[in-house]
C-alpha cells in the first residue's frame, strides 16, 4: 500500500497547474463564459491535444497513456481550482468512464483513440438519477437491424460541443441501454442553454426518432457496469469540487490577510481564523476522500488481481463519501469566501461568485449530498 503520489503523478498535476495558471486566468474564464459555446477552445487545445490530458484513462493500445484514475482526479482538481471552462469532465469523467465500463473492444477502439488525442469531445446524457420530478429521459425500440431513440434531456454538460454523445435510454420493458450518437445524427438537436454557473456549459438534448445501427448500442449495460460508470464519473466531479473548495479557501486567506479594519489585518481576528480553519478541515477531509476514492476507482477499472477486486468492492461507498464531502466542502468554502470578502465578494467584478456558482451546480450534479447520504444509510440500515 502506498497512499502517496508517484513522481509521475506529481508531474502531471504540476504541468496542468502551470498551464491553467497561464491560460485559465480570471479574464480568460470570463471571456469563455461570455462566448457562444461557453467553452475555452484555446485552453482545450492546449490541455487535450498538446498535453493529452484526456489520454490518462485510455489504455495504451488505443492511443492512450493508460496511467490511471488518480491522474484524472488530479487534473480534475486543478480544473476546479481554476473554474476552467472546458469539457474535461464531460469527456473523461462521463464518457471515458462509460466507455471503459460499458463498451466492448470494437466500440472502445472506435471512440477512445479520438478522445485520447483530444480531437473528440464527448458527453453522456442520463447517466445520473433524477432526484426530483423531471421530464428527462429517453426511450428506445428496435427498428429493422437497429434502434430508434426518442427523448429529451434539459441539461447535458458540454453536449453542444461534443462530437460523440452517449445516451442512456429505456426499453418498454424498463431495461436500460446506452447508445453512441455521433454529433449531427439525423433527429438529434442540441442547444446550448444559459445556466447559472457559466463556467460549466450545458446543452439541451432532443432526440426525435434518431435511427441507429445495432453497433451503436454499448455492449454491457447491466446495472453493475452502469453503476461503475456512474460512480467513476462521480469521483471525478468530486475531484473538481475539491479544487473549488481549495481555491475558495486560498482566496479567502489571501484577501483577509490584506484587508485591514480596526487597524489590523482581519485575518488576525479569531472569528476569521476559526472560519478559515473550518474551511481547511472540510477541504482536507474532502481531499482524503477524493484521493482514496480515485485509488479505488483505479482498481475497479484497471485492477486484475484479488487484492484489486477486494478494494473495488468499496467503490460505491467511497464515491458517495467523496461526492458528499467534496460537494459540501466546496459550497461551504465558497460561501464562506463570499462572507469573508464582505461586500466586494457580492460584486460581479470579484471572482468569488464564479466558485460559489460552480460549487452549487457541481454539488448537485450526479447526486446531491442528501442523495448520497441516503444511499449510505440504505446500505447500513435497510
Amino acid at each position: 500500500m502506498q497512499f502517496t503520489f508517484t513522481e509521475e503523478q506529481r508531474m502531471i498535476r504540476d504541468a496542468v497547474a502551470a498551464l491553467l495558471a497561464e491560460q485559465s486566468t480570471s479574464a480568460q474564464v470570463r471571456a469563455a463564459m461570455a462566448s457562444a459555446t461557453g467553452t475555452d477552445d484555446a485552453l482545450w487545445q492546449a490541455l487535450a491535444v498538446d498535453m493529452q490530458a484526456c489520454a490518462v484513462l485510455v489504455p495504451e493500445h488505443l492511443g492512450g497513456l493508460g496511467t490511471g484514475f488518480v491522474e484524472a482526479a488530479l487534473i480534475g482538481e486543478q480544473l476546479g481550482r481554476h473554474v476552467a471552462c472546458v469539457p474535461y469532465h464531460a469527456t473523461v469523467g462521463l464518457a471515458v468512464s462509460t466507455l471503459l465500463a460499458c463498451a466492448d473492444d470494437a466500440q472502445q477502439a472506435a471512440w477512445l483513440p479520438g478522445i485520447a488525442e483530444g480531437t473528440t469531445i464527448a458527453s453522456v446524457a442520463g447517466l445520473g438519477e433524477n432526484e426530483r420530478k423531471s421530464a428527462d429521459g429517453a426511450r428506445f425500440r428496435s427498428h429493422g437491424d437497429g434502434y430508434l431513440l426518442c427523448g429529451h434531456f434539459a441539461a447535458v454538460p458540454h453536449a453542444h460541443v461534443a462530437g460523440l454523445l452517449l445516451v442512456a435510454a429505456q426499453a418498454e420493458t424498463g431495461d436500460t441501454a446506452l447508445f453512441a450518437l455521433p454529433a449531427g445524427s439525423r433527429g438529434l438537436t442540441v442547444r446550448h442553454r444559459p445556466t447559472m454557473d457559466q463556467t460549466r456549459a450545458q446543452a439541451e438534448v432532443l432526440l426525435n426518432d434518431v435511427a441507429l445501427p445495432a453497433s451503436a448500442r454499448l455492449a454491457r449495460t447491466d446495472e453493475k457496469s452502469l453503476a461503475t460508470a456512474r460512480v467513476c464519473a462521480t469521483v471525478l466531479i468530486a475531484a473538481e469540487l475539491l479544487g473549488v473548495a481549495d481555491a475558495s479557501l486560498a482566496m479567502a486567506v489571501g484577501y483577509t490577510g490584506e484587508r485591514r479594519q480596526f487597524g489590523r489585518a482581519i485575518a488576525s481576528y479569531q472569528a476569521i481564523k476559526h472560519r478559515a480553519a473550518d474551511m481547511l478541515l472540510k477541504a482536507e477531509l474532502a481531499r482524503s476522500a477524493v484521493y482514496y476514492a480515485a485509488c479505488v476507482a483505479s482498481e475497479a477499472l484497471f485492477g486484475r488481481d484479488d487484492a484489486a477486486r477486494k478494494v473495488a468492492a468499496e467503490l460505491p461507498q467511497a464515491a458517495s463519501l467523496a461526492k458528499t464531502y467534496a460537494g459540501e466542502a466546496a459550497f461551504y468554502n465558497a460561501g464562506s469566501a463570499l462572507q469573508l470578502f464582505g461586500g466586494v465578494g457580492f460584486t460581479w467584478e470579484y471572482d468569488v461568485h464564479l466558485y460559489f456558482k460552480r460549487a452549487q451546480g457541481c454539488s448537485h450534479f450526479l447526486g446531491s449530498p442528501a442523495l448520497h447520504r441516503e444511499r449510505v444509510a440504505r446500505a447500513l440500515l435497510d
Partner: protein
Amino acid sequence: MKISFSPEDEAFREEAARWLADNLTGEFDKLRFRGGPGDEHSFIDERRAWEKRLAAGGWVGVGWAKEDGGRGATISRQVIFAEEYARAGGPGRLGHIGEGLAGPTIAAFGTAEQKARYLPPILRGEALWCQGYSEPAAGSDLAAVATRARLGNDGQWRISGQKVWTSLAHLADWCFVLARTDPASSGHHGLGFFLVAMDQPGVTVRPIEQITGSSEFNEVFFDEAVAADLLGQPGEGWKIAMALLGFERGVSTLGQQMQFRGELDEIIRVAKDNGAAQDPDIRSRIAEAQMGLTVMRYNALRMLGGDAEETRAALVYKLHWASWHRNLGKLAMDVLGEAAELCDTAPYGLTRLQSLFLFTRADTLYGGSNQIQRNLIAERGLGMPKEPKGR
C-alpha cells in the same frame, strides 16, 4: 498512489489475525471491544495481563525500530495490525502512552543507558507510563508550566508542583514530566523533560471525579519527588515535548478508530431494533457518522503516507475525530430516545452509550481543545497571524 496491499502484507495480516483469534479467548474473551475512552476503568487487572500477553507475542512496539527492540514494521503493516486489532475487538491499551509516546521519545533523545533501562520494560508490556504536561494554570497555554525541577547537591533533580488531567496516573509506574529547570525562565525556555517513578513518597495521585461519576483522570502532586532521569539537557524540555507529539503519527489513531467502529455498530443495532432507523433525520445522521468515520480512516492513511505535502491532513485530524465522536455520543442518545435515561446499575452505573455520550464531551477539550486546534490550523496550516500574547 495505491491502496491495495501486497501479498506479503496480506500474509502478515493473516498472521496477526490468527494470533489475535488464538489469544483473545478464555480469560481475555470478555475484554473484546472494552476499555476504550470512557470505558478506561474497566477490567484493569485483565488488561494488565493482556499487555503482557500481547508483548509475549511480539505485538508491542510493532512500529519501533529493530535496534530499539521493535519489529521495525512498515507503515503498511502497522496499519494492518491496527486494523486487525480493531476487527478482533482488542481491548483499549493500558500501555499506549509508553509504547506510542514515552518509548519513541526516549529512543530519539535518550542515551544508550536510558534506552537500555526504559525501553525493554515497555516492550515486555510491564511498565505503564503517564504524561505529566498539563497543570491547573497551564492548560491550553502549556508553556505556562510552573512545576519546578531543582538540582540537588547529590546530583539528583527533585520535582515539585502539580500536574492535572493525567490519565492512568493511578496505574502508571512512570511519568514523563515537563518542569522548569530555570526558575527565572518563562514560556518555552528553561524547561526540562524528566522521567519520574510514580511509586515514591514525593508523589501523590488523587483521582478526579468526572461528569461520568468515574475517574479516568487524576491530579498528581509532586513534593520533592526524585527524578530518575533527565532526557536531553536542561532547557531542551519544550523541544522534546513537542517532538513527542510528532511521534503520534496516527497509527494508534487507527486503533482508536476500532473503538469508534464498535460504538457506531452498536448504535446502528439499536436503531434497527427500536425503529429509529426509519426516522429520516436519524438515518441521515447515521449515514453522516458512517462517512465521518470512513473519511477518518482515509485521512489517517494520508497522514501515514508521510508525504511532506500532507501535513495539513495531520493538522485537521484531531478537530475532526473529536467533533465526530462528540456528535456520535449525542446520536446514541437520540437513537435511544427516552430509554437513554435508564442507568445499568445503582447508584450511577452508566450504560456504555451513556458513558460515550458524557465522556465524548472531554474529547473536544483534551489534547488541545477544538478552539486551540482551530488556532493551530489557521496559523500553521494557513499561515494566518498568530494570536496576541498577554505576556
